[in-house]
């Protein structure tokens, strides 16, 4: 591909970029704002990160730039100006022409966004073919060039593949190539790296950034991941409850976050370089229609004053180009990225081993997934199993928890060898080792009430019954910060974070000595993750519970665990105390993982 033809002026007045003015999207049928009052400028060649947690409306803003809204919502006000034309006012035909050609979209889950029954090559040339651009050969050549640009093979064999024959990273890069093919001016990326491993994510992000720079394309990168934004964006817009809460150059936002929500968000994310005491944000993000009057964040804000609830605060300028939607912007003091830093776990602490895994080999049918894994876990200690997808980390934890029984080797609990499956273990062993699942939407029976769920282990193991059990349930709920009002709620009424708390309470109800936590925060928003991690840390300190913590997130490991086992393809490649492994990694693989992980600060 050739260099950009236009000379891109890097000024504040957008010459080729995109301007969003006062954009609003409402639900159809009800006058309820999904997002409102969105003002945003994308300058040519610039990547703007649009960050928000679930329910913030970030994806809605993203697709609005293409004059598109999902079923049930409609764009009700505002302008999206591309070179002086308002995209939202264009006739339908021109909008279609504009989509793809001038504003391209990269979907969140490309695996489902590529048509499963059309070959990759066909899908790549489809748009050009329909528009009659070039000849069949030139189109094919363009497709090949596009694939080469994103670092994919471009021979006939590859073009003939279907989407399901590609790996996750490949699919995402095909989607990128497809978006760049018509040489758009603006790119909207909707969480394009969700579910990818850090190495793949890094590659996709680098590809994207490079293409944007070389083609002079401006991009809106929609994501929930602050760390990713810190690595790729030029400017950052933080969204909360349908509005932009803070907007500014990346460095300014991370060095001097001025909105209490941005600060709270930054307080809840772990750092790679140092352990932190993570904090969550209490409460949940209000849904459209249930948002508080005045400042949307007022019901969760630590700095709230009466005036906050009077009216929606305007965006107030903090510094040139940096604004925050908070009336107390100047009053709440400075902020430090290192706030919340705590000493790393002491590598020389005396260890009293409670659970040991020796020579573990795990199979699925004839296929061996885990090879000769050995490690141990001491009382009151957190050991992290870290690896990318396919590393066998979850398989190991399931074998230890007795959920998977095709394994050989030994798992010893206080020196006794444990049976392979939970069913053949003694009730006492089952009680003392509790397993918590990754996805709280699947791990709680939606038909049962919270009380029924939490008291069941007590009844089963004869710990408590009747009134006494109910009291214990209430105690546990308090401990995991769930209001007693939820006692008779069905699990289907709870948010993800609340569900995961219930799952933890259920595990605690059995009074375990060891908890096996399988990626228990990966389905949750970062602010919720922060509070769950804080909860676990408290449990470890107060009750001396040991935890096996499975995760793919190295930064989280630093904050939560004392020891770490780095896994690759079913083998332990490096193990040791967190400080040693993360500060002085010996293995190439560990180093690569560390360098590919996005970092904040």
């Amino acid at each position, binding site marked *: 591909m050739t260099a950009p033809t236009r000379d891109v002026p890097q000024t504040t007045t957008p010459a080729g970029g995109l301007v969003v003015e006062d954009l609003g999207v409402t639900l159809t049928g009800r006058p309820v704002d999904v997002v409102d009052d969105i003002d945003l400028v994308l300058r040519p060649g610039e990547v703007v990160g649009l960050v928000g*947690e*679930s*329910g913030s409306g970030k994806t809605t803003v993203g697709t609005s730039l293409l004059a598109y809204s999902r079923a049930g919502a409609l764009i009700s006000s505002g302008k999206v100006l591309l070179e002086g034309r308002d995209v939202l006012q264009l006739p339908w035909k021109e909008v279609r022409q504009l989509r793809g050609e001038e504003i391209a979209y990269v979907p969140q889950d490309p695996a489902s966004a590529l048509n499963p029954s059309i070959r990759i090559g066909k899908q790549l040339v489809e748009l050009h073919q329909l528009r009659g651009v070039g000849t069949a050969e030139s189109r094919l050549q363009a497709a090949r060039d596009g694939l080469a640009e994103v670092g994919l093979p471009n021979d006939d064999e590859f073009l003939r593949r279907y989407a399901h024959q590609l790996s996750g990273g490949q699919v995402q890069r095909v989607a990128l190539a497809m978006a760049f093919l018509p040489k758009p001016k603006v790119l909207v990326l909707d969480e394009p790296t969700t579910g990818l491993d850090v190495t793949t994510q890094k590659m996709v992000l680098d590809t994207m950034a490079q293409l944007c720079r070389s083609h002079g394309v401006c991009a809106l990168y929609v994501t929930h991941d602050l760390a990713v934004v810190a690595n790729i964006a030029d400017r950052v817009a933080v969204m909360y409850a349908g509005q932009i809460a803070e907007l500014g150059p990346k460095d300014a936002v991370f060095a001097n976050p001025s909105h209490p929500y941005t600060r709270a968000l930054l307080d809840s994310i772990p750092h790679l370089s140092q352990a932190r005491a993570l904090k969550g944000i209490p409460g*949940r*993000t*209000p*849904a459209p229609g249930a948002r508080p009057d005045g400042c949307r964040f007022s019901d969760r804000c630590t700095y709230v004053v009466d005036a906050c609830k009077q009216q929606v605060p305007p965006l107030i300028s903090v510094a040139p180009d940096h604004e925050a939607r908070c009336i107390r912007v100047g009053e709440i003091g400075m902020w430090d990225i290192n706030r919340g830093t705590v000493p790393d776990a002491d590598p020389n602490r005396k260890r009293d081993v409670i659970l040991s895994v020796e020579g573990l080999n795990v199979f699925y049918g004839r296929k061996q997934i885990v090879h000769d894994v050995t490690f141990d876990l001491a009382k009151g200690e957190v050991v992290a199993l870290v690896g990318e997808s396919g590393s066998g980390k979850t398989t190991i934890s399931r074998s230890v*928890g*007795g*959920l998977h029984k095709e394994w050989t080797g030994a798992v010893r609990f206080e020196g006794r060898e444990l049976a392979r499956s*939970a*069913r053949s*273990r003694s*009730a006492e062993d*089952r009680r003392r080792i509790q*397993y918590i*699942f*990754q*996805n709280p*939407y*699947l*791990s*709680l*029976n*939606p*038909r*049962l009430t919270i009380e029924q769920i939490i008291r*069941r*282990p007590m009844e*089963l193991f004869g710990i408590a019954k009747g009134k006494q059990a109910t009291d214990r349930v209430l105690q546990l709920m308090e401990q995991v910060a769930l209001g007693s009002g939820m006692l008779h709620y*069905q699990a*289907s*009424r*709870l*948010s*993800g*974070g609340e569900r995961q708390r219930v799952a933890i309470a*259920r595990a605690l109800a*059995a009074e375990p000595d060891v908890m096996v936590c399988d990626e228990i925060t990966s*389905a*949750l*928003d970062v602010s*919720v993750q922060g509070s769950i991690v804080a909860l676990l840390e408290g449990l470890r300190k107060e009750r001396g519970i040991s935890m096996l913590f499975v995760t793919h997130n190295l930064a989280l490991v630093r904050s939560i665990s004392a020891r770490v086992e780095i896994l690759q393809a079913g083998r332990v490649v490096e193990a040791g105390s967190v400080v040693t492994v993360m500060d002085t990694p010996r293995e190439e693989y560990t180093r690569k993982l560390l360098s590919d992980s996005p970092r904040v600060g």
Partner: protein
Amino acid sequence: MSTTASLPSTPSFLGRAMKQKRFVFGFTVTLLVIAFAVLAPLVAPYGEEETAGPPYSKGGLFGTDYLGQDVLSRLMHGGQGVLLISVLATLLGMVLGILIGVVAAYAGGWWDEVLMRLNDVLLAFPQILLALVVLTALQNPAAWVIIVLVGVSHAPRVARVSRGVALGIVSRDFVVAAEALGEKRSRVIVAEVLPNMIGPLLAEAGLRLTYSIGVVAALGFLGFAADPGAANWGQMMNENRLGLQTQPWAVLAPVLMIAIFTIATNLMADGLAQLSQRGD
């Protein structure tokens, strides 16, 4: 998956069903037909096998049939048998089918394979064929024989559906969690799996009821009813078919009753199915 995706309140399944037009309509009409079948014999102008006039005459609301019996009275008497047999056959088919399907899904592996292969064998018989084959060697089938035949012909179809639904549930982590706690297998099925299948199973039951009526009436229509003299909507069509030209109501009255009833049960079933797809 969104952390805010929780409803302010989740009323019970039936509570939500009552707000759905399609279900409410189907349910109401179904109840009306059942009420007619149960109560009408009490007010019927003539007895079940009582002659009211010459054959195919015009007396009474619907005239008389091939034996000169009053069609309206036969219609009023003839519902109970059909409905009772259909409902019992549906129940039998549901119980058998759920049992097979859930056990196959939960046990998995070989059990699943063998049960489902055998199920396929039964599925190769169109429902009416299964009944006919057995009736070949029997003289006058008793009512329970028809119930068993229709019920058994439902079972493989119900089994297939309930296995499908159960498969989506047994793989969920809350079932695995119950296993890891060491809950008894029977309790896992009863307390964890079945409650989550209620919606789809209710819908299936409605559908099965629709088909039961069809098959039971069809057997009567083909002349294989339990009691040849008794009034029975299916049989009435058979008896009076030759008089369709002269006295159409003797055939059309029972035909319309069956049509109304099957339409109603089907609407009800579909309403339930829509709900269970939408809800959790």
